[in-house]
C-alpha cells in the first residue's frame, strides 16, 4: 500500500490502466509520443512533460502525435467521442484554449443539450495550468474558472498523485466531456498511490484536514499550500477544516456548507485571478446559503488581477503562498465586529 509515486507517474499509470481496460481509449496531442516523422526515436518525449511516456509502444496505433493544430485535434477528439471512442486529448497548456475553445464550449459542451439528450461525448481534455515554472504570461494561467462556467463540461483539478490517478480514471470512464487540469508545478510531487485501478467520483470534496475553527477551501495545487498553512495555524492553536473539492464542476457545495455551518468562518484559496473565479463562486455560495452561520467576513486568497509575470521575484509574489493563507485565516479568526 505504501507505494509512493509522482503526480506524473500517477497520471501515466491511470492512462496505461485505462488503455488496458478499454480498447476505445486513445491518446492524442502534440508530441504525446514525440518524434513523429523525425529521423530519431519515435517515443522521444511522451508529451512535453512526459506524462504519456511509454504508452506509444505499449499501445500501437493508439497514441497519436498531432500537428500543432489545437482546433483540429481537440475537435477530432470530440468527434471521435461521438462515435464510440474515449479519446484523451492533451491541450498542452491551458492558455492555448484560446485557439480551440469553440470546439470545447460550443461543440462538446452543448451536444447533449442541443441534441435533446441523445448525444454522449466521453472526451477528456488533459491540460496543464498554473504558475511557478517561470513560464510567463501565456504558459502559466489558472483558467479552470472559465471552463467551470460552461454547462455541459466537468472540470477536474487534482491536488495530489492519489487524486490525479483516481480522478483521471474517472474522467476517462465518465460519459460527459471532462476538462482535466494538471498543475505543471506538481508533476514531481510524490505521494502514496495504490497500484490497483480505482476511481474517485466527481463532486465529492476530500477532507484534507479536520478542524473546528475555520474552513479553508482550496483548489488544485493550492490544496497543499492550504494544508501547509493549516499546519502552521495549528501550532498557534487554530484548527482549520481544509477542503479540496477535487472538481470545480460539479462542485460539492454540500460539504462546503456543512463545514462552514460548523466553523462559521471561510477562507477560499484559488490560484486564479480574482474576478469570477472559484473563490468568488464559493464565497457567493456561502454568503447566500450559510449567511447565518458566518461569524466573520469571508477571505479570499487569489492571484492579483494581472497576467502572470516572468521574473521569479514577481512570480513568487503572484502565487498565493502559505503565509498569505495563514494571514488571511488569522484575520478571519481574530475578526471582531
Amino acid at each position, binding site marked *: 500500500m505504501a507505494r509512493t509515486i509522482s503526480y506524473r507517474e500517477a497520471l501515466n499509470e491511470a492512462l496505461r490502466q485505462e488503455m488496458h481496460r478499454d480498447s476505445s481509449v486513445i491518446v492524442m496531442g502534440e508530441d504525446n509520443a514525440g518524434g513523429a516523422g523525425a529521423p530519431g526515436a519515435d517515443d522521444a518525449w511522451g508529451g512535453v512533460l512526459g506524462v504519456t511516456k511509454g504508452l506509444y509502444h505499449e499501445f500501437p496505433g493508439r497514441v497519436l502525435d498531432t*500537428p500543432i493544430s489545437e482546433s483540429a485535434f481537440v475537435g477530432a477528439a470530440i468527434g471521435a467521442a461521438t462515435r464510440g471512442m474515449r479519446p484523451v486529448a492533451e491541450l498542452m497548456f491551458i492558455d492555448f484554449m484560446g485557439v480551440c475553445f469553440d470546439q470545447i464550449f460550443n461543440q462538446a459542451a452543448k451536444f447533449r443539450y442541443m441534441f435533446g439528450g441523445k448525444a454522449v461525448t466521453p472526451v477528456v481534455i488533459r491540460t496543464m495550468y498554473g504558475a511557478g515554472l517561470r513560464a510567463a504570461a501565456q504558459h502559466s494561467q489558472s483558467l479552470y474558472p472559465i471552463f467551470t462556467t460552461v454547462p455541459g463540461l466537468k472540470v477536474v483539478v487534482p491536488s495530489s498523485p492519489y487524486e490525479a490517478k483516481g480522478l483521471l480514471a474517472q474522467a476517462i470512464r465518465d460519459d460527459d466531456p471532462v476538462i482535466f487540469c494538471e498543475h505543471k508545478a506538481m508533476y514531481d510531487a510524490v505521494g502514496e498511490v495504490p497500484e490497483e485501478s480505482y476511481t474517485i467520483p466527481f463532486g465529492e470534496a476530500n477532507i484534507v484536514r479536520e478542524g473546528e475553527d475555520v474552513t479553508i477551501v482550496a483548489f488544485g495545487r493550492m490544496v497543499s499550500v492550504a494544508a501547509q498553512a493549516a499546519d502552521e495555524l495549528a501550532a498557534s492553536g487554530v484548527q482549520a477544516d481544509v477542503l479540496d473539492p477535487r472538481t470545480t464542476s460539479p462542485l460539492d457545495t454540500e460539504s462546503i456548507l456543512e463545514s462552514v455551518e460548523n466553523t462559521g468562518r471561510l477562507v477560499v484559496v484559488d490560484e486564479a485571478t480574482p474576478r469570477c473565479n472559484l473563490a468568488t463562486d464559493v464565497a457567493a455560495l456561502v454568503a447566500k446559503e450559510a449567511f447565518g452561520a458566518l461569524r466573520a467576513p469571508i477571505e479570499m486568497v487569489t492571484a492579483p488581477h494581472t497576467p502572470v509575470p516572468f521574473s521569479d521575484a514577481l512570480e513568487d509574489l503572484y502565487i498565493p503562498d502559505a503565509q498569505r493563507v495563514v494571514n488571511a485565516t488569522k484575520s478571519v479568526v481574530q475578526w471582531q465586529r
Partner: protein
Amino acid sequence: MTETLSTPAAGELNAEGLLDAYRTMRTIRVFEERVHDEFATGEIPGFVHLYAGEEASATGVCSHLDARDSIASTHRGHGHCIAKGVDPVEMMAEIYGKRTGSCHGKGGSMHIADLSKGMLGANGIVGGGPPLICGTALAAKQQNNGGVGVAFFGDGASNQGTTLESLNLASVWNLPAIFVAENNGYAEATASTWSVAADNIADRAAGFGMPGVIVDGFDFFAVHEAAGEAISRAREGGGPTLIEVKFTRYFGHFEGDQQAYRADEVANARDKLDCLKRFRARVTESGQLESSALDTVDSEVAALIESAVTEAKAAPKPTGVDLETDVYVSY
C-alpha cells in the same frame, strides 16, 4: 481488413436508387419551401437558413453513405439531415420548437441532429464541423469498419482556421474524410469571389496534399460521381478529398434576408439549372424512370410535408421540467 460496400459507379444507379435520390431531393425542396412559407406567418421562432437549390449536393454525397458513416453540417443543415436519413416529421417539429422534435425542442433549426443516423448536427458555428469529422473519421479508422466522415461546409467556412487545420490534420493522419465545400456564392451577404482569395476553394486542396475536385452543384450526377470516387478512395485507405460544389441558394442567407446584395441569379438558376428539373429530364429521357413514377413521389412527398407541418403545429412545447435536463449524462 477494411470492409467495403459495393457502391454503384456514378451514373450506374439502378431505378430504385434513382428514385430514392429523387425522393430525397424532392423532400428537401418541399420541406424548405414550406418552411419558407410558414416562417413568413411568424409561427416559426428564431433563425432559419434554407437549403433549397442545393439539394443535389447533400443527396449526391449521402447516397453513398451508410450507418458506419457520419456527416457534419452547417447553419444550412436541413438538406444534410434529410439526405442522411433524419425523419422530416421530427425535423419539422424541432423547427417549431416542439417537444416531439428531433432534439425535443432544445436545438432548433441550427442544431438539428440525429447521432443514431450519424448526423452530427447542423452547426451554428461557421467552420465548427470539419474538426469533428476528423474525429469521426479517426474513430472509423480505429474501429477498422471502413466508415468515412463527411464535413459539409460553406464558402464562408472555407476561410476559417478550423477548416484549414482540419484539412491538414486529415492528410497528416490519412483519414477517411471527405470535405465538401458548398460554394453557394455568398457567406452571409459577402461574395465568395471576394472573400476567397483563391480562384476556387478546391485549389486549396493542393496545399494540404489531397485531391481537389470542382463539380456542378446543380447536377446530381456530377456530385454523385465525384463523391463516389472520393468516398471509395477513403474507404480503401486512400485518405481525404476536398470537393467544391458550386451552385447558388434559392433563398436568402436567413429567412427575412432582403438580399439586396444579390443579382438575379436565382431566377436563372430556378429556370435553367435546377437540380430537380435536370434530374427529371435526364432520367425520363434516358428511359431509366417513368415520369409517372416521379409524379407519384411528388405527391407522396407533398403529403409527408403537409402532415409534418400539421403534426408540428399540434405538438406540445417542452415545459419547465425539460429546462434543466439533458445537460450531462450524470452530474
